């Protein structure tokens, strides 16, 4: 019985590690345009 706790803990760690790794920050880029006003050949 004494061995069960460490084994469970090890299993939990094994199973949870990918979840912890998956909790890394998610990175993304949002690109925005606006007020284009029909412009197709901007200059200046």
């Amino acid at each position, binding site marked *: 019985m004494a061995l069960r706790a460490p084994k469970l803990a090890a299993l939990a760690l094994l199973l949870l590690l990918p979840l912890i790794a998956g909790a890394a920050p998610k*990175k*993304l*880029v*949002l*690109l925005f*345009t606006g*007020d284009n*006003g*029909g412009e*197709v050949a901007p200059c200046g």
Partner: protein
Amino acid sequence: MPVLALDAGNALFKTLADGQDSSAKPRAELVLEQLEAQGYTAMAVGQRDLVLGVDFLKKKTKGAKLKLLSANLVDAKGQPLFPASVVTMVGGLKVGIMGVSPASGDGAAVLPQGIRGLPVGPAVSAEVKRLRQKEQVSLVVLLAAVPYVEAVKLAQGAEGVDFVVQSHDGRGVGMAQRQGVSTLVPPGERGRQVAKLELSVEGTGPFADLSEANRARDSQRMVEANITRVQERLKTEKNEDTRRSLQETLTSFEARRDALARTAEAQGPATGRTYLLTYLQLGADVASDAAVQKQVERVEPPGSAGH
């Protein structure tokens, strides 16, 4: 890195009188076609997108991936003219994108006959609540094709919206500004810039701006370079007056360096939910896509008034 391209609206026509200009329609058609071709996910419907009416927009975007959004535009019978939002997965994150248009009776905006703009605030609140509770999105972006004053009010009070991207007044570039509950982002104007918002999302809560810490670190590096130069001169300088002056300069630079280091440190490490806003300038130094350039020159030949 996963990318989501969005347009805050007022993309298609220069003025409300453009309906009389024969060259305006092909330009608007080309802009819509290119938004689709370049993989834009959504665009808010602004007053300057409605110059040729709702039918023109619907016909040109039929079957397109690009979604035209407005949470508050309705027809004469009160029926919504466009979807209020779209939900998409980007980089493992569920993102809700909403659009909002000017309200009828807003002195700063004019809508064509037969189109009504419901009050902006309640329309946004209802949709963001649905996105957060029903769709369980992690991020909400509001494309606000409304006058700037109205967009500020939205950013101050629209609980659940992370970013408000405003178009209407052609305000151009600027800094992202935290306004109450969300951050107001200027998207640039007239095809001259693209606003690039780099996000790192971990957990919940408000987004922190990384730019201040980055500016402080950049300045710190420049001051450190100046400190090195002054120290080098001090090694060889024999004149006592000059040495005293250099020593004072060095002390001043060191104080500045320490202050900048404190500013950078106060922003903390780049964890949690952070953003960094920069602009890509679409100047002459940016290469044009040859196929798109041909299409542009078809509707606006080189040397023409608009070119």
